[in-house]
């Protein structure tokens, strides 16, 4: 099952975005195939988050076009893009701190998109669905964790809660902005199978990540950004051999050892 054979679900064409004189994203073009896991890596400040902000509508690109499922989505408001099926997580987690964890999922479950899939929830039905989703992403159902205030949860659970939001909305494409950074290796070890499972059930993933070892196990394709420009696209193993990538990360004339 090679991802190349499938039609692209997201097409990004010459997207450019600058903040004042800083070119955050410069002329980036790539395709995302259905069922693929695409990794976007690059040094700090290379424009990864800006790029996905452009795709999800939180920023408007100055130039270039973005297509989802054949329809142009450039410059659409974020809620319409999310409604069409592109879900995202935030690098800085954004739970509703004053609500219990499972109540956090009531919001995406009440979105028009979720309603189209599941019908209206009545008499606490949404609560049940929310707790089911939380169990899927690794909240122990019988423990007190799903009922704790989101503000009291540790980092690992908050990252899963972000993923839970995309699952609740039944997003086709899930864009993860550094879901693994800041987690312990045990937490990552439990997060990776979750992503594999979601991918097997038909979700397409874009993952921005600094944890290259885990990312390279997951990703089919990797894009490397440096100063807003795409400097590499291809297999993860090939990225390690590429001289441009080595230079971007380590400067000239250094060896890459992962």
């Amino acid at each position, binding site marked *: 099952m090679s991802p190349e054979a499938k039609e692209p679900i997201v097409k990004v064409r010459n997207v450019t975005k600058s903040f004042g004189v800083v070119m955050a994203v410069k002329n980036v073009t790539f395709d995302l195939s259905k069922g693929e896991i695409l990794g976007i890596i690059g040094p700090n400040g290379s424009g990864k988050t800006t790029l996905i902000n452009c795709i999800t509508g939180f920023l408007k690109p100055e130039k270039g076009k973005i297509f989802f499922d054949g329809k142009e989505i450039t410059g659409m408001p974020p*809620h319409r893009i999310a409604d069409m099926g592109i879900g995202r997580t935030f690098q800085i987690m*954004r739970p509703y701190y004053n*609500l219990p964890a499972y*109540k956090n999922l009531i*919001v995406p479950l*009440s979105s028009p998109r979720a309603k189209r899939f599941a019908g209206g929830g009545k008499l606490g039905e949404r609560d049940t669905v929310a707790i089911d989703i939380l169990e899927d992403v690794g909240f122990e159902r019988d423990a007190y964790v799903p009922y704790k205030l989101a503000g009291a949860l540790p980092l690992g659970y908050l990252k899963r809660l972000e993923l839970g939001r995309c699952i*609740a909305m039944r997003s086709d494409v899930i864009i993860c902005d550094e879901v693994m950074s800041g987690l312990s290796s045990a937490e990552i070890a439990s997060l990776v199978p979750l992503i594999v499972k979601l991918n097997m059930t038909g979700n397409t993933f874009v993952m921005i990540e600094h944890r290259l070892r885990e990312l390279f196990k997951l990703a089919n394709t990797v894009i490397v950004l440096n100063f807003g420009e795409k400097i590499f696209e291809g297999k993860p193993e090939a990225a390690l051999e590429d001289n441009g990538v080595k230079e971007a990360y380590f400067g000239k004339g250094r060896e890459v050892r992962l």
Partner: protein
Amino acid sequence: MADVTTNLERRKERIDRGIKVRTEGIYALLSYREIFYLLVPRGALVIGMLVVPALLPELWQRVFSLIGIYALLAMAFDFLLSFVGLVCLGGALWVGVGGYVSGALASGFGLPLAGNLPLATFVGAALCTLLFLPCLTLRDIYFAIASFVYPFIFLHVIEALQILGGTEGLIGLPTFTNKWVAIYLMAILLLLFFFALRRLGSEDVGLVIRAIRENDQAVKASGINIIFWKAVVTFVASLLGCFAGAYLCALYGWTGMSYFALDFSILPIACLVLGGSGNFSGSLIGAFILVPLSELLRAFGPVRMVVYAAILAFFVVARPEGIMPYLTRKYHQFERWVEV
């Protein structure tokens, strides 16, 4: 030995009552005692609201209507603040628009009060929502500033163009023929709005709306149009405010430029500071304290403002949460001294 016990340190311990612990969200009632425990505060409010105005002397029945007006405005302000996080300093806009729409309907079309009040409420609310619509993308202090300006724009447009009665206002409008209709219309609608808004807060829709205040980015990423929901909340808040304006107009049979006065923007906020925001009971209790107080102090002239300011300053410093959250906490917990 006695010496030792007196020297032991004692600490005040606060413990949630059993029912509060068990029923965070859903009420599981085990006995009549617990049913009464929940019913007493609510029942006291309903019965008090229906019985007290009947016992008041004539003058204080007027004050009761005024209390209702300020309570509605405070609830509208609280609804915008604690649900979508919009600080609306333009409460006078609601009163003014409600009053003038009601006045225009009465003087222009001769609409009787029974049709005038609801129509003015809805038309006024729609108008206010349209006016606020361009500002709904703003946040925090920026929305506060924009909303603050609206009443002044109306005030000066009416003054400059001498429309809608100009500086004189619209006079000779129909008033309530029966004082009991006026009082109980306000009492019943106040209770209705109060319980309806509280119920809305515990529904899923209310949860979505409250999430906008906490974190609008995540709500957007959940595929929900936050401007639409902010507009809905603004419309509901405007319903309360415009009804207050139309009611005021029906109470006095007169609409004038003073309907856009700063009092209607600021006093409800003072009620909220006093009572506490979040679940609307603070708006009620705040209005029931501040409005009669301002009537009592009327005789003292300018000193009124001093007393007023002193009370507000005291509450901001000593009880920043407001009276109602404080009382609620006391009601749900019991305290005891324990030896450490």
